[in-house]
């Protein structure tokens, strides 16, 4: 990863972490404060992203919404990746027949469109932040599990591990010293790619009215609420959507810079 790429990625991550944890630093106003008389102001000096149907400042809400959206994105990816690590590693290290069984299960989960799986989970748990995390996490897990499995299988059959066998290393020491550390780096890249997609998924659920409850300024919810005033106030949907694209694109860039190869997410 070239030096400039490293600096840019760190800046990008620092900005969004700051925004997520201390939004007041960048947007001091209260994202929930309503001011009906100021409703539907176009982007201007006072309100760079304009105001929404209740007169709330869209810029403030986008900044404060970062915490909600990134929280869901990170938590969902962690859940999805955690599950994938367990399933993928098990499949890769297991004897042939167990590998075949897990592969078939993954194939089955993988063949059902992830949104259908998310909807089934939401129907079971009801809408909200927690269920959105579980839904996005579970529906992306099969994709990750397949990648983890292939990653660990290539490592398992690598010359490096054979050399370690010849040097007399036991299975446990080979896994701890060589297999896991070398599997982590590409997986880390995959995780960053995953975060971008997870933020989009969470927003999609809010778009369908199944994600974060009002009045939280989660990007997907804002975008979904904004689309009914599309003709009158395009900025209500445009800027939260832009924030999603910036985060997702940024995450992909950093993921690729970390060496993550684009595979099926």
């Amino acid at each position, binding site marked *: 990863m070239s030096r400039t790429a490293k600096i840019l990625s760190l800046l990008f991550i620092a900005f969004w972490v700051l925004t997520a944890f201390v939004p007041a630093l960048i947007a001091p106003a209260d994202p929930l404060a309503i001011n009906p008389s100021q409703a539907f102001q176009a982007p201007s000096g006072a309100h760079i992203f304009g105001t929404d149907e209740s007169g709330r400042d869209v810029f403030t809400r986008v900044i404060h919404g970062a915490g909600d959206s990134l929280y869901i994105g990170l938590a969902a990816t962690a859940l999805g990746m955690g599950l994938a690590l367990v399933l993928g590693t098990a499949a890769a290290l297991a004897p042939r027949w167990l590998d075949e069984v897990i592969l078939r299960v993954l*194939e089955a989960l993988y063949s*059902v469109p992830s*949104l*259908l799986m998310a*909807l089934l989970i939401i*129907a079971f748990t009801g809408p909200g932040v927690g269920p959105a995390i579980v839904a996005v996490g579970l529906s992306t897990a099969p994709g990750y599990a397949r990648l983890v499995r292939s990653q660990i299988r290539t490592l398992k059959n690598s010359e490096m591990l054979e050399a370690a066998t010849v040097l007399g290393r036991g299975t446990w020491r080979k896994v701890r010293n060589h297999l896991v550390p070398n599997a982590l780096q590409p997986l880390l890249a995959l995780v960053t790619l995953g975060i971008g997609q997870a933020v989009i998924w969470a927003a999609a659920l809010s778009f369908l009215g199944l994600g974060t409850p009002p009045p939280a300024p989660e990007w997907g919810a804002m*975008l979904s609420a904004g689309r009914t005033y599309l*003709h009158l106030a395009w900025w209500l949907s445009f800027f939260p959507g832009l924030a999603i694209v910036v985060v997702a694109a940024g995450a992909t860039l950093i993921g690729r810079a970390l060496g993550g190869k*684009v595979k*099926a997410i």
Partner: protein
Amino acid sequence: MKLLAWLGRKVGGALVVLWLVATAIFIGVRLIPGDPAEAIMGGPGSQASAEALANARSEYGLDLPIVSQYFLFLAKLIRLDFGTSYSFKDPVLQIMGEVLPPTINLALMALAVAWLLALLLALLAMRANKFGQLLGNAVEIVAAAVPHFWLGAVLIMLFSSMLGWLPAVANGTAAGLVLPVLTLALPLAGFLTQLMRDSLNTAMGSQFALAARARGESRLTVFRRHGLRHAALPALGLTGWAFSSLLSGAVVVEAIFARPGLGRSLLSAVLARDIPMVTGIALFSALVYIVVMALTEAIERLIDPAGAES
């Protein structure tokens, strides 16, 4: 004979997968709170009397013990009898017949457009200078990061409300298809391009590309005869996943552009706890995924007989 063995394995695998999906849905949907009988009578708000709820339960076999319900369910599936949809009162198979074609049609066109765009972008990236490469790279990554629902809304705003070139809503004409297909195709194209560009670069920098140049072929001919094939291979492998992601995207796009299709019935079926419909849709999309995977694998074996075995 080898083909028969491959086909046998494929069908066997497919049946196992479909069985797993059916079982998962059978269990999953029953975990959803709310009384299925109510769903039959039109949702919990219905004023259906206790007696009406009872005969709905018996008619749909919901009063049988769970295990026999499961085997009854499997037996009917084998005879391709998906049961009757609670909300539409019509056989699921018939509804799927009406609802599946437009979605598959939309997904196929989106896939084709995504492929064309990806190849074009990969070719441009190959010929472009340093700045062109960077620009191409950025376009890919942003395209892959755009959520369908935002893109759809922006496209409607731009091309229909402001410019008025294209209809906002599907009206059966070709023009009505442009925006929905673009909304689905652009993010996928961004994804495929990143894939194709990597494999294209390796192919164009390879020894056999040098050998081809040494035979007097121009860069473009080398791309046409060698680069294209190598660029397409990995993207082909992803088509199965791409197709199922298009089905997910269809839920949103069909709502925004008011197009009939699997997507819309999917969401309504889940929210209305319409168990037969949900099972039908899940199995159909799983079947579509498996068929697409088998097709792409067959094409892959054509292009790269050696590679397929590894």
